[in-house]
């Protein structure tokens, strides 16, 4: 085990290196002076929690985005990629975490998208199809190259994505969560392909939330936390426990469960709820799940991506239909009620993606804040401007939004303050139950602490709080109870005194004896 430093290992075998890379989005620093080496002909795995900056670093190394500052060194020369195709021409390709396939096109056309094989008169479809078939054979996947990608299941789409990266014959291959939708056998095949590639001298960067799986394939481990490299080691020197310890790091104090108040009656009761996958595959993303939350209680739902957290919360809020079961608010069945009616009765949802679902970018901070409580300042037909202003000013104060005032455009706020606007908007409706889907996503640790403080204050006043997270530290902050979700079900429940290892084990992330 080596001390935390990007240069801790011999750099002679580095084919591609990041030197002192910084990446800032406005006031938010996604990467802070990162040094990262990709070892020639080896697998280097980057570990880190959500939002640690892994994907940002990979996007910089593959030319998708330009760093704010710092250098990229390829074969000892400082380079600068103007685009991802520039990087691809130099032998670097990336398998993105989000699939970047055109669903309407065939497997063949997706693999050769943007670099179609030409003949004198047009495109060489026959050769493209032959190569596509060969790639599918290499990946041991029985997919006809002419199949439209939208007809494939998610795992097969991921295989196509991998095949596209392999088809380029790159020297450096970055794989950002390549296995998230693959079956165990498909993962084995992929690992065989990876070993084959490394034996031919291809350098691989691997990113995965499946720590054990990654540990099987990797030669080097690098841990990224809050935009900085915290540890680097050779795989043979480390174990799972080392990774978890370095990933999670020291606890930043996000608060503790509020005490001194009695829990009230059951405020929200989720009974046997199932939600079917929106893509129509019939797969249950939430599977007969039941959960009760009392007034004044804070419940944290922990789970990996795809565990069904978002679907559960959206189904309870009325955003997506339930395939079975029901939700009750203070004993009243919510089935058949619209989102607006649920808000009126006191159940609100703060969505996961605030840009897409939380904010109206064309409106001011104030109008975003007052959007869910228009009835509160409507006098018969008309809106009372003075009452609206009072409402906005008091929300800005209560939620401590740092803004020049209610008339500022929402886009000028920092991520953390935007998130406070979304939360403030829902709290202004005086709810009985608030559901928050990853409330800390993409906000800095200070704003995180403020959001949690706000929630625990409101819980002490009798609000039932349910929030989801994929960061263990956040579970172990203000929550009275931790519910771990895995494959649409509750796999374990813990009190506030649970350990990180227990929680992560229950989620399927890491099994530590």
């Amino acid at each position, binding site marked *: 085990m080596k001390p935390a430093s990007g240069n801790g290992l011999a750099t002679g075998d580095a084919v591609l290196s990041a030197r002192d890379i910084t990446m*800032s989005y*406005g006031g938010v620093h*996604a990467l802070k002076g990162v040094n990262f080496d990709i070892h020639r002909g080896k697998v280097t795995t980057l570990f880190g929690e*959500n939002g640690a900056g892994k*994907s940002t670093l990979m996007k910089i190394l593959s030319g998708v985005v330009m760093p704010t500052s710092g250098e990229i060194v390829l074969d000892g020369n400082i380079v600068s990629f103007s685009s991802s195709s520039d990087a691809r021409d130099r032998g670097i390709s990336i398998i993105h*975490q989000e*699939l970047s396939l055109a669903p309407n096109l065939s497997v063949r056309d997706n693999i050769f998208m943007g670099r179609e094989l030409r003949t004198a008169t047009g495109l060489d479809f026959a050769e493209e199809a032959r190569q596509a078939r060969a790639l599918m054979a290499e990946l041991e996947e029985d997919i006809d190259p002419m199949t439209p990608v939208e007809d494939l*299941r*998610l795992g097969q789409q991921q295989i196509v994505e991998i095949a596209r990266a392999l088809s380029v014959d790159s020297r450096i291959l970055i794989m950002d969560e390549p*296995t*998230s*939708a*693959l079956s*165990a056998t498909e*993962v084995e095949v992929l690992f065989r392909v990876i070993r084959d590639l490394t034996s031919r001298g291809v350098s691989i960067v691997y990113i995965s939330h499946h720590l054990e799986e990654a540990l099987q394939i990797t030669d080097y481990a690098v841990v990224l936390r809050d935009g900085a490299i915290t540890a680097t080691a050779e795989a043979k020197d480390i174990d799972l426990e080392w990774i978890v310890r370095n990933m999670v790091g020291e606890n930043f104090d996000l608060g503790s469960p509020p005490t001194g108040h009695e829990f009230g009656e059951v405020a929200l009761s989720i009974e046997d709820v199932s939600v079917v*996958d929106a893509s129509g*595959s019939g*797969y249950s993303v939430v599977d007969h799940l039941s959960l009760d939350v009392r007034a004044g209680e804070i419940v944290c739902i922990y789970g*990996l*991506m*795809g565990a*069904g957290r*978002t679907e559960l919360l959206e189904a309870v809020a009325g*955003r997506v239909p339930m395939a079975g079961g029901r939700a009750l608010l203070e004993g009243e069945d919510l089935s058949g009620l*619209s*989102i*607006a009616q649920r808000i*009126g009765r006191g159940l609100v949802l703060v*969505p*996961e*993606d605030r*840009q*897409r679902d*939380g*904010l*109206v*970018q*064309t*409106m001011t901070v104030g*109008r975003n804040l007052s*959007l*869910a409580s*228009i*009835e509160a300042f*409507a006098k018969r037909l*008309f*809106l009372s401007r003075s009452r609206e202003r009072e409402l906005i000013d008091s929300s800005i104060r209560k939620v401590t939004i740092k*803004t*020049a*005032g209610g008339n500022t455009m*929402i*886009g*000028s*706020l920092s991520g953390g303050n935007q998130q406070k606007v979304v939360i403030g908007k829902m709290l202004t*409706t005086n709810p009985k139950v608030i559901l928050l889907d990853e409330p800390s*996503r*993409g*906000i800095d640790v200070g704003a995180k602490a403020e959001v949690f403080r706000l929630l625990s204050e409101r819980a002490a006043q009798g609000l039932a709080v349910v929030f989801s997270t994929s960061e263990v530290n956040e579970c172990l902050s203000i929550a009275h109870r931790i519910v771990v979700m*895995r*494959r649409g079900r509750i796999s374990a429940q813990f009190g506030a005194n649970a350990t990180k290892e227990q929680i992560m084990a229950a989620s399927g992330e890491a099994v530590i004896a």
Partner: protein
Amino acid sequence: MSNVSQAAKQSSPAVRSEGFDVAKLLLEGRAFFALIAIIVVFSMLSPYYLSVANFLTMASHVAIFGILAVGMLLVILNGGIDLSVGSTLGLAGVVAGFLMQGVTLNWFGVVLYPPVWVVAVLACMLGAAVGLINGVLIARFKVPAFVATLGVMYMARGLALLMTSGLTYNNLGGRPELGNTGFDALGFNRLFGVPTGVVVLAVIAFIGSITLNRTAFGRWLYASGGNERAAELSGVPVKTVQVSVYVLSGICAAIAGLILSSQLTSAGPTAGTTYELTAIAAVVIGGAALTGGRGNIRGTLLGAFVIGFLSDGLVIIGISSYWQTVFTGAVIVLAVLLNAVQYRRRSKLASSTNGQSTSQKRGKAEAANPAHGKTAG
């Protein structure tokens, strides 16, 4: 906490002082300055342009487009488009003309001559019905607005042609003994010297402005046009809002149809052809974004006046109608270009202070790929 409100008070003058930026002022008030420029230029080119009588004549031309444009603005604020308003205008005029001829009820052996106000109400209800069809197609059956209203545009025009066999109702005067006179009032009467059409436009614009700025419906419209998903999660009845804007647009088109046929003293089935495009142009020149959520009545009215005063001015100075078409097109392109500049400036300002794209994409990935999971234990 008091620190925050303190900071807010101290920094608000700074926010206001940005308003003195001359480029920004010219950019944001471009429709207004364009209108001033048009009036100044044509007043210099023609001695007849700058007179109260001419302005009132031009204004009564603008009234038709203005009323259509107010309805169109509501639809565009919602992020939609209504291509059917020109046809709805024609259909409403034809139906009004038909009703003025008397309705023969064979079963009872009588001919009914509805009074003018009944004719007007029925025409408006027809406009509302056409809008309802648009709205239901778009909100309930998820037909893209462009396609739905394109289809309805053809159907309404075809119905108008069928009803009249392609002919025009020339006799809209009614007869005193039947009690159905007064249809010409909409086109020719004046209130304190102002043509009725202009008064109607002013009333509609006033109601529209109040609705957008002072009612819950207006707030819902801006919110659902700006971000439908966020509005829905905030309890905004987005479907109702969507249907309503098309209904309102249909009613505006019917009102415009009544005024136009009254001004022309005839109701023809081809009236209002391509007017929907002029209405869209007025809204766009007025600074509204076709993506929804941005725009206001004041800008839209200015846009309608820019188009109307420009084309009438070109007529007055004797420029060929072919050139008029070219000029109008150029103004529209220029307006859209400036809209793009303005919104790019805004989004630059916004994006420079909020990042997080990585984590949001990740969020989308999770939402889009719910099967992501531990299948590969």
